[in-house]
Structure formats: C-alpha cells, structure tokens
C-alpha cells in the first residue's frame, strides 16, 4: 500500500481486527522455534520467547504497519533479545540448554527426538553467529529468504547463498554423524 491516506483509512477499519490473540497464536511457534534453533531447546528458548512477547506487548502502540509487517517488527525485537542474551552470557549456548522440555509424545519418542535435536543443536552451535541466525530465521521461524533479507539487511541472493552453503555443510555433518 503506497497511499498514505488510503492506508490510514484502511487502518481505521482493519486495525480493529488486529487480534492479538490470533497474532499470538500464529507468531509464538515461530518465535519459540527461532530461539530453539538459535540457542537450543529448553527453558532458555522459552525465556527468550517470553521476553520477546513481553517487549512487543509493551511497545505495541509503537508498531506502525505502514513501516513493517507485524512479523517483521516482532522478529526485529526477537533478534535484539537474542543479541542481548549472547552479550550477557556466552557466545554459544551450552549443550545442557539443549535438554528438551516434556511435551505430548511418548517418552521413547521424546528421547529419540531430543537426541536428534541435541545432535542438531550441537552442529548449529558450531556455526558462526550470522549463519546460525540465518538458519534459525529460515528453519526455526519459517521465514522466506525475502523476509530474512528484509529483517537482516542482507540481500535476498546473499541470504540464499549463505543458507545454501551452510545447509550443505550441516547436512554433510549430519549424515556423517548419523
């Protein structure tokens, strides 16, 4: 929408359907998985997802749809939360953070999944920070390359190139370990 006035008129009507519950339900899994892929599974991912939504909640009146989509805005906050986390702690998540939190599957399934994700988390932890963030945005948050480019300021082709190279390396290590 390029028309400022029409956009405002549209916002007048459509803003009222901006249902935070719906946005929350849609975005929480994305944000949560972004952090799982970024720092590992477990309580830390939940804590960082919580912090992201708390910040977004407090700043919700500052969100301007004419500048960014809600997801873009939310992930800008999530990325800052991740930066703060690494600044305050260590550059990579410790392996103990990769311990899973009980969910719905059977204990056997859970053990297998946890083991698989622990393996993946270990490989992700060895990536340089930028590559790990791109993988987290792509495969954790489920963003498109275009959305990642917008969020990170990289070009879309650059995002594609880095991800292609990184995934290739990860796959090789995954297969080798498996």
């Amino acid at each position, binding site marked *: *929408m*390029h*028309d*400022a*006035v*029409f956009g*405002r*008129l*549209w*916002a*007048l*009507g*459509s*803003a*009222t*359907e*901006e*249902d*935070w*519950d*719906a946005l*929350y339900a*849609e975005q*929480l*899994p994305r944000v*949560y*998985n972004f952090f*799982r*892929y970024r720092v590992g*599974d477990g309580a830390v991912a*939940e804590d960082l*997802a919580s912090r992201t*939504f*708390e910040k977004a*909640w*407090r700043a*919700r009146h500052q*969100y301007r*749809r004419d500048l*960014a*989509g*809600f*997801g*873009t805005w939310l992930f800008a906050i999530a990325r800052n939360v991740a930066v703060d986390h690494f600044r305050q702690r260590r550059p990579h998540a410790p392996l103990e953070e990769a311990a899973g*939190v*009980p*969910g719905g599957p059977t204990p056997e399934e859970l053990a297998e*999944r946890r083991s*698989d*994700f622990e393996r*993946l988390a270990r490989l992700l932890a060895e990536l340089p920070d930028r590559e790990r963030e791109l*993988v987290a945005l*792509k*495969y*954790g948050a*489920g963003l498109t390359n275009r959305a990642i480019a917008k969020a990170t300021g990289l070009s879309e082709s650059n995002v594609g190139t880095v991800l292609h190279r990184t*995934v*290739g390396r*990860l*796959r090789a290590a995954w297969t080798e370990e498996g």
Partner: protein
Amino acid sequence: MDDRFLHEHRREPRPEFARSLRARLRASGPDAEERTGFRLHPALAGALAVAAIAVAFSFPAVRAGAQQVLDLFRVREFAVVQVDENRIEQLKSRHLDPEAFLGGPVETLEDPGPAKRFADFASAQQAAGFTVQRPTHLARTLSPDSVFVEGERRVRVTIDTRPMRELMDAMDVRDLSLPAGLDGRSIEARLPVVVVQTFRGEGKRRAALVQAESPEVSMPPGVDLPRLGEIGLRLLGVDRDEAHRLAGVIDWNTTMLVPVVASATRFQQVSVNGARGVLLETSSTATPDGSDRGPGQALLWTHGGRVFALLGNFRQTVDMVQMAESVN
C-alpha cells in the same frame, strides 16, 4: 537442496507455556483490559490523521458576524485531491501531524481511553450513546464479527506558524504567505464517538463500517481560510494554478480533503442513496501481519450529519455500494 532434517525439528511450544505467557501478557500493563483482542491506536491514528488534515487544510470559512463565536467545520463533502507519492513521503518524513504542522503542542482536553470491543450490537449501541446504523444487506459471504466503540476525544492546538513556514520553505512553497494573526490562536477539534462494525468473509475477505458524527474543528473567526487551504494544497504537491483554482471553489466549511496518490489509488464519485460519496480503490491492502490481502476499497459518504466509511476487499465495487446503500 535436501533440508528436511532442518525442517523436521520444529516443535509447537508447550501448551502450558503458551497459556501462561498469554495470561501474563494480558495481566500486565495498566490498560490490560483494552486487550480484548485488538489494537485500537492505529484506528485512532487514522481518525486523528483525517482530523489533522481537516485541521490543517480545511479551516472553516469565515462567516461575517458580530458575535465572536467560534466558527465550526463539519464534514458534509469529501474532495479527492491527487498528489504525488514522493510528496506524501516527504510529508511523512516530516511527521505530518497537528503538533508538527501547526507548531504548537496538542493538548488533550478529553481522552476517552482505549476503545472497547463488544460481542453484541445492543451493548455497543448503548456504549455509543446513539442509534448505530447498520447494513441490512451484506456482500457475499460476509457476516458480522464485532463492534468497537471509541469514545469522544477533544484536543486543542495553539498555533505557532514558525514550523509551518519552515515546512513551506522546505516544500518550496515560497510565493504564498501565511495569513497574519494566526500565532497564539487556538483550534479545538472534537472527534466524536466512533463506532466500527467489522465483518468477516471466506478467506481473507473483510469489511468494516466506520461511523461517527462529523468531527468538528473550531477556531476564532477572521482568518483567510481559502489562503490556508491553498497553502495546504500546495504542500500536498498540487500545482500552483490548480491549487489556486481549487482553493476558490472548495467550501472550506464543509469539505474534507482526501489526498490520494494517483499511481496507487483510483477514485470515482458514486451516489449512496442520493448522497455524493467517494469510492477509492487500491491494488493492494495489508493484513495485520503485513501480508497482502489484495485489492481494497474505501467508500466515504455523509448522511444526516454522520460520516460513514465502508472499507473492505470486495469482489466487486457494486457489492460495496449495495451494502453502503443498505445502511440505515
């Protein structure tokens, strides 16, 4: 590229975690009860933006009169003005709002607080304090969703022409001068209760009917309002001759300017039960999360002293006009 091993490790958050976080968010902050599920400030911003345009560019024409009563602006007509997209961006970058444009601080005289959402029409009508009109004919697949009521807001701006002059310089409007005697004078805007009825249809089909008594903008008489209007038009990028012509024919007492970017929006005049309305159409509209909802339309009209806006992404504009005509 085989990347399934990366995809397949996504997991849903634990339900108890999701529930407790949502509860915590709802319970936090002084305006938690506002969050019945929507964010109103953009709506208010929209209303204020329209009011700002009214304040800035639609000062009421002066009626000769011995009484020093306030002149009043009420919307009865809309006039679409095509403007250049770059000019809009320039103005946006300069934060076009009453405070920035008129120079003085905006003083809130009455703040109704956050709007409230109502699941049933009767409660909303009671909160609004007037008989809310609604459409008896809905476009295909649409059904009523919610009703929102935003209370009356009153603001006062004390004019300081310095920023206005700076803006004119920045926008290269140097051949017109501001009327004398504006500094220190007050403008009051009353933004009456706004009621928004929302409708949902299949997929991303949405519509909203906004209605309110006309905003009122009052200021002391004695100001050359067509001149201010002309300056406003020039600031919006209207060329010199056209701005001069329009300033002379627009009734500044009753006409709200609706600037639209020609490259992004088409417009036409339509009749809504005999009243003149303006139909705006744009090629793309955004959902709350920023994805494209497709073409959208806005129909503005007034009736019985009330201002209406029907917004939506209708399949056909005829559906929209039919729905608008059924509002009573």
